[in-house]
């Protein structure tokens, strides 16, 4: 049906057109009628007239118990995993393809998978996530898409970001400075006196960088200085990637929760700002964290959050590099990503 024809059909179905040009698309809202007006015949689909036998309703009522058994009993767990289809059928439940690929059923399948259970016992979280991916619980995604979006956002606002960097004057807070120096030592890059002097100069002088560049350029500087500058930039502007939003407010195509505001129950359990640009990443992270809760495996949850932070830091810093807001070679970039990620983990007690 063509759109024009469809809209006409919709209007015929109850919408009252207002003045030409401002015609309502979905009819007159009840808010404009005293008391909300009378409601005529509603389009309802009564379950009481569905013809399903009473036994089916009893099975639905028992689903909670069935799930408890599957999760709580090794025997039931094994039977379920052997054939979810047969298990659901045996208990009078639907076992169509749509149900079998439902995320809740996939969660159950993964919970009962002996191979996954073995990986969980070994705390081999990468293997667990790989199993989830293979089972279809986690969706395939192209990380390049997130990188592309963040880069577009950074490039669009590069002048403003540069301005912010300059205005922040790269002054490290004491705890940031301490962390940075400890990290540099632990990274095997023992700071030379020159390096530390340069870092100190950056910190104490409040200059953006030892070069004349208006932004952040570390061409030719030691790795430690590169890390110092990047940590300063990112920690001052991003603070913690899982908490304060920075990049996301510059993105014009933010994906937000369509349930507009119900932020206590129905939002995801993390607040990754950059990650929100990639709905698949959000869904995968949410599911993996939920699986961690169902398994009683906080280690899996921490692993997932760390991976998320690392990816956010990576795409953000790579975008800074590509937008010429930060200059570093590959080695410097990798070390800087590790440093900033480590700082972020610590800032949220991971």
């Amino acid at each position, binding site marked *: 049906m063509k759109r024009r024809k469809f809209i006409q*059909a919709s209007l015929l179905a109850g919408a009252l057109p207002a003045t030409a040009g401002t015609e309502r698309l979905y009819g007159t809202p009840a808010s404009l009628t005293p008391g909300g007006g009378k*409601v005529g015949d509603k389009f309802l689909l009564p379950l009481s007239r569905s013809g399903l036998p009473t036994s089916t309703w009893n099975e639905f009522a028992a689903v909670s118990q069935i799930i408890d058994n599957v999760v709580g009993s090794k025997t039931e767990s094994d039977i379920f995993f052997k054939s979810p289809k047969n298990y659901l059928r045996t208990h009078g439940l*639907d076992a169509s393809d749509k149900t079998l690929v439902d995320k809740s059923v996939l969660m159950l399948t993964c919970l009962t998978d002996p191979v996954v259970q073995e990986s969980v016992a070994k705390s081999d979280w990468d293997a667990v996530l790989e199993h989830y991916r293979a089972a279809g619980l986690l969706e395939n995604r192209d990380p390049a898409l997130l990188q592309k979006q963040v880069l577009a956002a950074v490039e669009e606002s590069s002048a403003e970001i540069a301005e912010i960097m300059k205005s922040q004057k790269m002054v490290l807070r004491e705890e940031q400075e301490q962390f940075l120096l400890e990290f540099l030592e632990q990274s095997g890059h023992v700071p030379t006196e020159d390096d530390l002097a340069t870092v100190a100069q950056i910190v104490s002088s409040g200059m953006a960088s030892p070069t004349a560049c208006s932004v952040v350029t570390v061409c030719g500087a030691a790795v430690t200085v590169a890390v110092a500058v990047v940590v300063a930039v990112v920690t001052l502007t991003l603070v913690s990637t899982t908490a304060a939003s920075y990049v996301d407010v510059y993105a014009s195509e933010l994906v*937000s929760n*369509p349930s*507009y505001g119900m932020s206590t129950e129905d939002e995801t359990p993390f607040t990754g700002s950059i990650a*929100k640009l990639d709905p698949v990443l959000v869904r995968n992270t949410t599911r993996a964290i939920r699986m961690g809760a169902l398994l009683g495996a906080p280690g899996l949850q921490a692993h997932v959050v760390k991976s998320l932070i690392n990816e956010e830091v990576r795409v953000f810093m790579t975008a800074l590099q590509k937008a010429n807001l930060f200059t570093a070679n590959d080695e410097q970039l990798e070390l800087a990503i590790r440093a900033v990620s480590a700082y972020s983990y610590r800032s949220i007690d991971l």
Partner: protein
Amino acid sequence: MDDMQGAAIAPHSLTILCTYQCTAACKQCCFESSPEVRGRLSGEDIIARITEARCEFPSLKLVAFSGGEATLLKQALFDAIAHATSLGLLTRIVSNASWGKTVNSANRMADSLSRSGLSELNISTGKDHQEWVPSESVINAAQAAVDRGIFTLITVEADDQESTCLSSIAYDERVRRMLKTKSLALQSNSWMPFRRDAEKRVQERNFAEMRKGCEQIFGNVVVTPHDNLSACCGLTLEHIPEMRLGHCDGTNMGSLYRSQADDFLKFWIHVEGPYAIIERVMGKESADILEDVVHICQACAIMHKNPQIREAIEREYLSIVPEVMTRFHIKRALESR
């Protein structure tokens, strides 16, 4: 059977739409709110509905006050927030921040909200809103709330090509400071048109989000300014008569809410969402029907109003009942663990 299904649903949020009246008159407002529109709940009724909901729904955690502009209720709003707080519930107001015209006016309102125990402030703004409420008011209001320890979320509707609403707020010094302290969050929300003459907005269609089930259904229960109980707080709730569960009489909130348990369509919307339902029952034709749809509530209005879709749903739903109900109950069982 009704009782069994009724026991399976439980709301976590109560939304009180205090009034349809608003200090703004946005062109594409879902309720067509304005200073002229009448219809509001009395302070006594609001408190009674909160008390009733607390008794009826042990699962309840949050009361959200919206409108229209909820702060027009003044003392009645503060009393209601205090009442909900005293019952151990979290509270949120959704406001356009018109009370933040000056720093002083923002502080006065924030003082009252803080004293009443408000947990969270949501400020709605964007291109349409800012024709009536400038960004300065939004930022004043956010700052006043944050200064009093009230977590604040600013939601900016998707901009059109020329609009700089989002960036003007994002680049503001005060906003940046609040973002850093994690006391403020900023997001850009999807936006949907209500009139044919609406301009295009810069927003990508997020198909994965639109194809999701609707958590509003069963998760939220809503009292409208006409004291009607609604099944959702979606943008098109007042355009969809099926969302109205009945008129509140002070004793019937639980039975009205649970009456949804006999409507398979509500379960279907919860599990698959209206966008996916239309795709499922209309097949190839759905591409034309859903062309330009950017919001799940838009799809919901279309699904309820289009005669061809309704016919297709009626024709097919019986064969789908076992599947959807199985998926619903397994999801619910896992959520409750």
